[in-house]
């Protein structure tokens, strides 16, 4: 037992969790925390907007695979975090958000900068705590990390009233805690795995669908082993992009609304799907009722509530997918070494890839999104990290930027949050400073959080903003072209701002690229630079993303251009 104030206990508890960086911005209700922070043994990154603090913590978490931490004051500070918290929640990313709150006695009085943030955060957090006396803080922090990082990860909020931060108590820092009503670790059911083996071995056309769960549990080698034993082609969801090396001879890339054409086609021809850590989202499968008809579906997931939520399945294997896959590999290896490498199903993969390589034409310009992204891939080292903004840029990244080293790509896939990519890339850089980090961006999204350039420059977290600039809210414009007879409404960004100057104003490098050769030079220069680089790549505002599965239709109705 040690006596200290609540704020100090918070910092100490974070240190004990091994926190090495916190992203935040102070205010009246978290002043005691910021005072205690002066003596902390971890880094604090001052953001320019709390939304970016939560995105940075998220980006950090996705690469470190442990909770990212962000701080904000009460009221507007706390509500500014919410977009990032909801983004993390939608993508099951572990996060600890610590907000200041008005003193206990003021709660419920509509005090200055009072927001019922517990109420606001409830639907987009895994849990939200409000310690009501200082001595609860160490245990609360321990529980928060445990909940955020275990099972299906997610964000946890700790809302601390100012007087609780300030008051003194005897603190006991527990090493182990139990949360009644929460038992996240389930070992995979062997009988279910036995059934899976039987189905998989009897299938003539098995396909694997890798989801975000594979990345969250780091089950890359296990997934690859299963694929190679079964000689099963691997598609992914968009969230699962990079759960399997996209240059592997069985890889087919993401399925879905803007999935790879060959992947969308192939999955419909399969007779058995092994879905690993995926939730059958509408964006991935099109129509729930149509998808998977006449096929056996095996579903592995850590979250029991995902089983049968969107799709009824034949076999459900509940448990951490890494351990489920590992056991599956063992069970499969007992029966077979490897399926025949040269079978019609594997040949079909190649056939489809060749077919669509032939049919899907690039947009007729010298510098297109496709060419730009292929160039980026060519030059970037394989271990680089890439993230994206939201819109056409994101879907082009999904289509044309192959992830070679598993787990080096992430995006706001569930919530689709514009403005996520740039701060998240800074968080990723903080998590893994030695590799290049790129944000594949659209101009509209970049506008939303571009002030994080200050953080990138001042805190020495240089990243590359690969800005595919069509001066348009491009994806919305594409929908208006497609569904509203080209009646444009609210999509023109009209040549403002000048991104080269924006970059320079913050002390970063800004380069305009109007041709493929200029782009190549710019990428090479960015990789050498020690500050952030914004590459302003001018593309045509009329370039559409194809293939396109129109909402409300099935994967079979995919439009290819």
């Amino acid at each position, binding site marked *: 037992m040690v006596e200290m104030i609540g704020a100090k206990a918070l910092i100490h508890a974070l240190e004990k969790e091994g926190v090495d960086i916190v992203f935040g911005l102070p205010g009246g209700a978290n002043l005691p925390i910021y005072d205690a922070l002066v003596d902390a043994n971890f880094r604090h990154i001052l953001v320019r907007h709390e939304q970016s603090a939560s995105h940075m913590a998220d980006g950090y978490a996705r690469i470190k695979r442990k909770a990212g931490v962000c701080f904000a004051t009460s009221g507007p500070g706390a509500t500014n975090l919410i977009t990032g918290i909801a983004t993390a929640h939608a993508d099951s990313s572990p996060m600890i958000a610590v907000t200041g709150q008005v003193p206990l006695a003021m709660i419920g009085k509509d005090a200055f900068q009072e927001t019922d943030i517990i109420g606001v955060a*409830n639907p987009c957090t895994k849990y939200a705590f409000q310690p009501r006396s200082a001595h609860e803080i160490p245990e609360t922090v321990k529980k928060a990390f445990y909940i955020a990082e275990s099972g299906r990860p997610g964000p946890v909020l700790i809302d601390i009233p100012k007087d609780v931060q300030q008051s003194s108590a005897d603190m006991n820092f527990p090493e182990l805690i139990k949360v009644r009503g929460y038992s996240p670790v389930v070992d995979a059911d062997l009988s279910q795995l036995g059934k899976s083996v039987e189905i998989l071995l009897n299938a003539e056309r098995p396909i694997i669908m890798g989801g975000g769960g594979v990345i969250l549990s780091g089950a890359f080698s296990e997934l690859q082993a299963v694929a190679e034993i079964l000689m099963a082609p691997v598609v992914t969801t968009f969230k699962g992009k990079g759960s399997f090396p996209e240059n592997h001879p069985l890889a087919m890339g993401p399925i879905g609304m803007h999935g790879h054409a060959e992947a969308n086609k192939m999955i419909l021809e399969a007779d058995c799907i092994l879905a690993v850590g995926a939730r059958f989202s509408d964006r991935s499968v099109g129509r729930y009722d149509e998808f998977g008809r006449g096929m056996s579906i095996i579903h592995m997931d850590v979250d029991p509530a995902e089983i049968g*939520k969107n799709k009824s399945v034949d076999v459900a294997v509940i448990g951490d997918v890494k351990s489920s896959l590992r056991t599956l590999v063992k069970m499969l290896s007992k029966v077979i070494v490897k399926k025949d490498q040269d079978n019609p199903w594997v040949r079909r993969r190649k056939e489809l890839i060749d077919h669509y390589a032939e049919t899907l034409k690039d947009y007729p310009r010298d510098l297109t999104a496709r060419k730009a992204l292929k160039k980026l891939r060519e030059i970037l080292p394989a271990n680089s990290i890439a993230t994206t903004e939201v819109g056409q840029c994101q879907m082009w990244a999904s289509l044309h930027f192959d992830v070679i080293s598993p787990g080096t790509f992430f995006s706001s896939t569930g919530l689709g949050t514009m403005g996520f990519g740039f701060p998240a890339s800074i968080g990723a850089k903080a998590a893994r400073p030695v590799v290049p980090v790129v944000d594949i961006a659209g101009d509209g999204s970049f506008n939303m959080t571009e002030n994080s350039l200050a953080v990138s420059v001042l805190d020495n977290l240089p990243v590359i903003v690969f800005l595919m600039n069509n001066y348009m809210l491009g994806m919305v414009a594409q929908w208006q072209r497609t569904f509203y007879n080209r009646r444009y409404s609210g999509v023109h960004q009209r040549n403002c701002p000048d991104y080269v100057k924006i970059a320079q104003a913050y002390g970063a490098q800004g380069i305009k690229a109007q041709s493929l050769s200029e782009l190549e030079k710019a990428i090479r220069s960015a990789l050498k630079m020690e500050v952030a680089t914004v590459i302003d790549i001018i593309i045509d505002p009329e370039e559409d993303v194809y293939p396109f599965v129109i909402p409300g239709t099935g994967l079979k109705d995919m439009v290819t251009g």
Partner: protein
Amino acid sequence: MVTTTLPSTPTAPTPTTTLAEKIGGWHILSALLENKPGVLFRVTNLFRARNFNIESITVGSTEQPDLSRMTITLNSDERTLDQLAKQLRKLIDVVEVKVLDTDKTVYRELALIKMNAGDPTTRMEITNFASIFRANILDIGKETITVELTGTPDKIEAFKNLVDHFGITQLARTGVSALPRGAEL
């Protein structure tokens, strides 16, 4: 307690006809929750956010001071029921969730029913019905009678239908509380 009986009045439904038989897919869930602030909000917010349509909810204390029991009834297909149970289990403040087998469960609801009863014959008839349904007369005024009735929801429905034509002026139902029969926990 009023004890008069008249032979010509309808009899209370036999306890074997449950609502589950009348409306397919009537379910009872029983959950143990942490007894602390904000828990009820989390559970009800889940129902709203995930579009679950609940018939009744009761919450109260249990034999353990730090746990409350919530009983939920709903009409739904099996899949919705399964999702509801799973989503509830996912809530960290929810310690246990059981879907009760209505045949192996004792369940009761309490209703307070206030009816127009200005003239003596009406009063007589109501007290009669009350006695058949083992209901208690809680209050008799010049114009109204208030009855307390405990039973399965369908028993309460039956009584309501019986007295409806007198004019029910106010009605309050508690929702169902339930426990498994016998030694089962």
